């Protein structure tokens, strides 16, 4: 017989826990759900847009009743649970309904905090918590004129904005002199205040409510200074407090919330608590992202896995008031010894402040321009050292290189038909529509449903901004420790460390050791594992062709019609008449429909049938060509300029050095593609300063540049150092490549990698640690012994024949 799981509380945290559980194991429990409200599960954080008339109740439903039926869940809606009988393991509802449990999840959320002043019981005093409250406010807005909202925090301001948009005359009363003091510093709060006043909101600051006046319903509010203000309704928006009554009466240990451990279990291990009612390591949460983190961990434990741990959440906040862009995260008021970096443009109405401690972002407040909120939040959660980007950090991520979106940083101001994702042609309206109609919360979900940001990724910041402005603080920011894929909980760094320290040498062993959820992985993790094993155990690990993307399996670039392109290697871009003739002969022989000179100074033959590839390679091989690896996460090309042999400005032999570099590095597999260039003088005709590793020759020697990129997001290299000899260039280049090969995440180009680990770190490893550099170089040379085997020649001689030969149907 199946075990019984009961959920008390039919809200976002509880139901998300069930969804996560069903994703892992759909048949483990007979599930019952009790909810005090007479609805399915709805998106509580979107109540403010409903109040403001921007959305309807139907639009914010997350799980309708059909969902419960489809998943064979017994839904007891509109029934409040009043008792947990732990001795007999059952819950009892108000109406006497009683259901037994083997495991129980308490997700009773929180209650609005009603300040205990005389008159707070009067009709017309409304909280802001559920659909019923919204209905009451909407009703009041139709019959009354004057609304007073007590509380100038997130909740109160959203309520005030909604009532104002419904045509009421609204006054917000706040105890302090700073609006949203838990999220904003004084300057940002003042900007917000001015903007709200401009919209017609009355603000009474530093007023303490003494009593609410009225006979049969509210008529006015009186403050401690004796002043009064007329009111037809009073909305309590001062905050929430965890609803722990049920748990406490059952003898579960509670403080402000129900105390839970890192697997979300209460004192009674059969009973879990998630969401706003739970208190974890001294903290209770009122935002949605942490609740979802908790739901994942709780579901993992309920599914009898138990390896996930909840370690607390770092949160960020957005205000859902149409037209106001505001973002806040972490510690936004600097403590002693902290630095504050501020960028203020009063005319443009923008304000940005970062609090820095020990070279790391500790908090951020953004007003008016919030596009970089998710970036600052990421820097903060990952504890990234910012010394190298200090000079420009306030200007935002796109200042690190132009992401191609120019000034389109205010997503709220964009029209619905503005294109957000240029790769897939997805507009703002489509994304917002998918987020609201399908109840999406994460970047991954938006990518899956709309394809926006799923190709080149350059619009990720915009999509994240849309997500957060659409769902407000419910936006589930990409976790700082991001799993490689859905097959595992472990991140790239975890897997790299496990492979290294536990000497794991095959994919099966890695998946077993790290408890992979799927026996043979997926198209995301298999190529990553294959790469890591190849990089760590050169000569020992046997490359797995079926774990490579088709381009690396077929040694050509697949084109949209299923044909392949062929790029022979021309070291340093040099070639002879005989070589050119040989390429032309091949093109004739196999009727190559199109040829092109590539950006990396090579010749590309397009439209070759897969069956013909070995023949093409055989002819090229005879003429002395090897694979150009133009298809691989590998060393691509070394681009060179004419150099001092011919050029009147040349200072060094750039072509000769380019050939040497390419001879050293060809064939090596990398986390992503890797491009080199050598320019013979600072005029830089080979464009070395947008390459992964670029050499600019100067009269006194060679400048070495790293981490450039001319692709999606143009990034100019950082200067690593200057050296005097060609031998040094080769050594530094090999060492840098090896460091990248050993430490970057699979599919991470050098540009984001350098930004992630910081230039100082790389300088430390390559420049300061001389022995370390020599060791890296020697490991690179060692692994090249196994990598420098021409895959084309092997296949031209009959290797992997099945890959290129189709079966024929003889029937």
């Amino acid at each position, binding site marked *: 017989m199946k075990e019984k799981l009961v959920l008390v509380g039919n809200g976002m945290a509880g139901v998300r826990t069930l969804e996560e559980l069903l994703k892992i194991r759909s048949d483990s429990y007979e599930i019952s759900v009790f909810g005090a409200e007479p609805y399915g599960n709805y998106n509580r954080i979107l109540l403010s847009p409903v109040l403001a008339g921007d959305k309807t109740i139907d639009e914010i439903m997350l799980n309708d009743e059909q969902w419960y039926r489809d998943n064979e869940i017994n839904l007891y809606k509109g029934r409040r649970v009043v008792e947990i009988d732990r001795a007999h393991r059952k819950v009892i509802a108000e109406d006497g309904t009683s259901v037994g449990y083997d495991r129980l999840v308490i997700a009773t959320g929180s209650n609005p905090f009603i300040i205990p002043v005389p008159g707070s019981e009067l009709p017309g005093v409304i909280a802001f918590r559920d659909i019923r409250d919204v209905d009451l406010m909407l009703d009041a807005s139709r019959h009354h004129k004057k609304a007073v909202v007590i509380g100038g925090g997130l909740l109160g301001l959203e309520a005030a904005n909604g009532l104002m948009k419904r045509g009421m005359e609204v006054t917000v009363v706040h105890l302090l002199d700073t609006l949203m003091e838990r999220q904003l510093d004084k300057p940002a709060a003042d900007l917000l205040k001015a903007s709200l006043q401009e919209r017609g909101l009355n603000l009474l600051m530093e007023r303490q409510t003494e009593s609410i006046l009225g006979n049969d319903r509210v008529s006015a509010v009186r403050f401690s200074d004796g002043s009064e203000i007329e009111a037809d309704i009073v909305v309590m928006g001062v905050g929430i407090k965890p609803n722990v009554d049920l748990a406490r009466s059952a003898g579960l240990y509670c403080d402000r919330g129900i105390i839970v451990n890192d697997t979300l279990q209460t004192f009674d291990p059969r009973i879990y608590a998630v969401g706003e009612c739970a208190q974890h390591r001294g903290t209770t949460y009122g935002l949605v992202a942490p609740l979802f983190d908790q739901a994942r961990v709780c579901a993992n434990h309920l599914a009898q896995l138990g390896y996930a741990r909840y370690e607390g959440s770092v949160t960020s906040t957005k205000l859902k008031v149409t037209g106001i862009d505001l973002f806040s995260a972490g510690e936004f008021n600097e403590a002693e010894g902290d630095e504050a970096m501020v960028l203020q443009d009063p005319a443009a109405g923008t304000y940005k402040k970062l609090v820095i401690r020990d070279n790391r972002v500790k908090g951020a407040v953004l007003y008016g321009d919030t596009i970089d909120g998710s970036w600052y939040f990421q820097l903060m959660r990952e504890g990234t050292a910012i010394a190298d980007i200090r000079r420009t950090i306030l200007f935002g991520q796109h200042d690190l290189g132009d992401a191609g979106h120019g000034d389109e940083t205010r997503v709220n101001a964009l029209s619905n038909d503005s294109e957000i994702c240029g790769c897939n042609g997805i507009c703002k309206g489509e994304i917002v529509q998918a987020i609201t109609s399908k109840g999406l919360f994460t970047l991954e979900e938006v990518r899956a449903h709309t394809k926006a940001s799923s190709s080149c990724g350059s619009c990720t910041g915009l999509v994240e901004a849309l997500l957060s402005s659409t769902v407000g603080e419910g936006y589930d920011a990409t976790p700082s420790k991001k799993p490689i894929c859905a097959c595992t909980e472990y991140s790239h760094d975890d897997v790299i460390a496990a492979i290294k320290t536990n000497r794991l040498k095959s994919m099966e062993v890695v998946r077993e050791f790290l408890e992979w959820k799927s026996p*043979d992985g997926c198209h995301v993790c298999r190529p990553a594992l294959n790469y890591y094993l190849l990089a760590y155990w050169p000569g020992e690990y046997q490359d797995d062709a079926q774990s490579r993307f088709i381009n690396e399996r077929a040694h050509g670039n697949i084109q*949209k019609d299923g044909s392949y392109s062929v790029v022979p290697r021309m070291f340093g871009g040099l070639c002879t008449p005989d070589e050119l003739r040989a390429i032309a002969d091949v093109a004739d022989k196999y009727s190559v429909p199109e040829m092109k000179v590539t950006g990396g100074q090579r010749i590309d033959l397009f439209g070759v049938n897969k069956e013909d590839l070995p023949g093409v390679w055989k002819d090229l091989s005879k003429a002395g060509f090897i694979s150009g690896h133009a298809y691989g996460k590998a060393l691509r090309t070394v681009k060179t300029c004419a150099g001092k042999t011919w050029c009147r400005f040349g200072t060094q032999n750039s072509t000769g050095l380019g050939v040497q570099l390419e001879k050293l590095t060809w064939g090596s597999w990398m986390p992503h593609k890797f491009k080199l260039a050598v320019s013979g003088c600072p005029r830089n005709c080979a464009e070395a300063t947008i390459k992964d590793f670029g050499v600019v020759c100067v009269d006194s020697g060679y400048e070495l540049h790293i981490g450039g990129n001319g692709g999606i997001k143009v990034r100019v290299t950082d200067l690593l150092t200057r050296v005097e000899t060609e031998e040094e260039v080769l050594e530094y280049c090999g060492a840098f490549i090896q460091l990248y090969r050993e430490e970057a995440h699979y599919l991470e180009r050098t540009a984001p990698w350098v930004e992630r680990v910081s230039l100082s770190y790389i300088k430390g490893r390559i420049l300061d640690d001389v022995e370390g550099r020599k060791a890296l170089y020697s490991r690179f040379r060692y692994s090249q012994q196994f990598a420098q085997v021409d895959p084309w020649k092997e296949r031209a001689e009959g290797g992997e024949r099945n890959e290129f030969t189709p079966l024929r*149907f003889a029937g």
Partner: protein
Amino acid sequence: MTEWTEITKLDQIPRLGSRVLKAGGVDIAIFRTAKDTVFALKDQCPHKQGPLSQGIVHGTSVTCPLHNWKIDLASGEAQGPDKGCTNVYPVKVEGDSVYLALSADEVAA
């Protein structure tokens, strides 16, 4: 008339890989999973006609090499939020041989 025809030996298809079968005007992708189950699909992704045979096989799915649509090998249907379906052909393994059932008009098609 549909009848079973031997198309290849099992060991001629790589595990977690595939072979392309040229049958008249149709390309059919023959897949082999880690557990040696064999599936046959029209070699055309419902999205933009990418050659599914060139994708990465995992579990009982293949991921299209062009835009990462995930197609179920048994049903030919796209998984996740993507919608679409490609033809499935009956295929079986007996001993070390792989057989496909294909009607004459399908071959001619």
